[in-house]
């Protein structure tokens, strides 16, 4: 679960990582109200989860109240920005990159740092890999002080800035541990002209499999790009919204992604990605309801299940059809455990089950194009 910047910074603050003074607001008058507290110049930081906010003009730097109001109106008026973090500007001397993630090969935590902060680390990894320093950490032992020490000197830091950065690294690792983080990142970590070390941004992604022990984060609408994705998430159904005309209702990430590819290869376009497999294979009614909310022309079902029994899926599909009376054709390719029974059930309901994925994809594309 990826947190918003303001949430990550709340975590930073409570774990001893300095952040600039800031206030979270949802309306333009609130922006005006907090300017006195935050001061000018300041930064209006759109609280959206996608990256590249700077390039997209979503974190304007404002020098006057007038400018602040104009920019706040632009951002909050866009409907894509539900909240702004109004944050004091820092008098920046230099920027550092800092993150903790997992190294799946070495089976360690991995601290990544660079004295060249403020740019994307992926870009830096390609252009100047020597500017990146890494420190693996045994998760069982935890981060040792000597590692932090060595890291800051590898970054070329000295004196009090080195001391402050050691504290930030130590606390960042503590957050990584306490929050079961997939990634916790500060980019940039500012060194101000007053030689203070302050987190300019904050990214914290909590491991989905550890959410049971990470209380206090409710997935509200703001975490999703669309109403439909939010609605599907409430059901625990993986769902992505597109603007094509074929609704996918397929089993598992791998097969659904492959069907997505095949639809594109055949010249079709996908209306939505929906996983109807794994733990969701009994949720045919809810899944079909989601598909029907799209303006797609056909629903394409492709599965090849093991635990997810084909006959149970078929029963679910027939049940969904009886309840929802879908207004568009359905193409099925339901295979796997008990598939003979599935075929019987589908045929009894008047469907024509297919057995080959590519054939099913071609048929769906043809229907979408009005060819049949």
């Amino acid at each position, binding site marked *: 679960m990826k947190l918003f910047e303001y949430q990550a910074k709340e975590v930073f603050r409570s774990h001893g990582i300095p952040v600039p003074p800031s206030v979270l607001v949802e309306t333009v008058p609130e922006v005006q109200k907090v300017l006195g507290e935050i001061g000018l110049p300041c930064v209006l930081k759109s609280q959206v989860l996608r990256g590249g906010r700077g390039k997209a003009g979503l974190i304007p730097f404002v020098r006057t109240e007038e400018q602040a109001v104009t920019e706040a109106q632009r951002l909050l008026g866009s409907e894509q920005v539900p909240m702004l973090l109004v944050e004091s500007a820092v008098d920046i001397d230099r920027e550092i990159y800092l993150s903790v*993630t*997992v190294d799946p090969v070495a089976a360690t935590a991995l601290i990544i740092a660079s004295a060249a902060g403020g740019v994307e680390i992926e870009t830096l990894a390609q252009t100047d890999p020597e500017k990146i320093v890494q420190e693996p950490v045994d998760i069982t032992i935890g981060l040792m002080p000597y590692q932090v020490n060595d890291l800051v000197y590898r970054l070329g830091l000295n004196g009090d800035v080195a001391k402050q950065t050691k504290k930030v690294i130590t606390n960042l690792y503590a957050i990584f541990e306490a929050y079961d983080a997939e990634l916790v990142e500060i980019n940039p970590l500012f060194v101000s002209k007053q030689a203070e070390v302050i987190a300019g941004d904050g990214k914290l992604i909590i491991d989905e499999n550890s959410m049971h022990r990470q209380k206090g984060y409710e997935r509200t609408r703001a975490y999703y790009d669309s109403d439909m994705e939010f609605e599907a998430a409430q059901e625990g159904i993986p769902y992505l919204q597109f603007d094509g005309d074929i609704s996918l209702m397929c089993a*598992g*990430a*791998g097969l659904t992604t492959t069907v997505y590819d095949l639809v594109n290869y055949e010249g079709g376009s996908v209306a939505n990605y929906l996983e109807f497999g794994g733990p969701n294979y009994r949720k045919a009614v809810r899944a079909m309801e989601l598909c029907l909310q799209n303006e797609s022309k056909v629903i394409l079902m492709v599965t090849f299940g*093991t635990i997810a029994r084909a006959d149970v899926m078929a029963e679910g599909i027939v049940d969904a059809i009886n309840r929802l009376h879908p207004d568009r054709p359905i193409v099925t390719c339901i295979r796997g455990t008990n598939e003979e029974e599935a075929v019987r059930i589908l045929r009894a309901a008047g469907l024509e089950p297919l057995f080959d*994925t590519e054939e099913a994809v071609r048929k769906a594309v043809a229907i979408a194009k009005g060819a049949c």
Partner: protein
Amino acid sequence: MSIFIESDTRVLVQGMTGKEGSFWTKHMIDLGTQVVAGVTPGKEGLEVEGRPVYHSVRRAAAEHEIDAAMLFVPPRFTKDAVFEALDSGIQKIVTIADGIPLHEMVQIRAAARSNGAMVVGGNTSGVISPGTAMMGMFPYWIERVYTPGRIGVMTRSGSLTNEVTAMVVRAGFGVSSLIGIGGDPVPGTRFAEMLPLYEQDRETDAVVIIGELGGTMEEEVAEAMRDGRFTKPVVAFLGGRTAPKGKRMGHAGAIVTGGKGTVEGKIKALTEAGALVAERPRFVGELLQELLK
């Protein structure tokens, strides 16, 4: 001969008395797997399919020779169960659990490595050598997928496995050993770490890799091929070629590797190393035909 799980591999089932545990224990035995005992704390004295159940792995290991442990254990207890198996010196462990906490999975892999053991999974169906034995949950009775033969299959995806393997079989081949590496970001064992087993297996002529975007496991296979550590033919299928980038959260692992992890990068690496990359599942079978016939 087959790899990882062979006809004489003595398997302990942890979590044997649970619903999934007992159901798949029966199927593993039916296929021919040497299931020797099971473990469920508090259930010592029971039997499942005629196999005795013990309170702990140590107690089972005191009574039976054990080569491998099959875990039907919920994700939150998986670390404990793996450590328990490792503690009794078990070197081959398969865990199907979907939802193992990331940091615990890192510890599992680290512990396995320092014990010289192999943990396969989590988030997988397991390992099967069709016609011989299996550790996991495979509908081996579906003949158009689980036909014995001479093609090794390794997969990151549960749902794609049947789809792609069916194409291998449709092209006239069969499967020597199929290994579900698992779909988690930190699998216990990685593709490249399985290659030495396939390299040595006299019953495997070629290996099919079912990969996807993210991570660097496919690139590591390419590296093993380039280094001459793996010399048999490789055919790969990678899902997500046309997947729009914006819709996927940045993959933490991709950070370190400087742009690795994209499907394009994987195709390039594999192709340069001499692997054939199939654009569609069907082409996997056709490419194998070209290579082997």
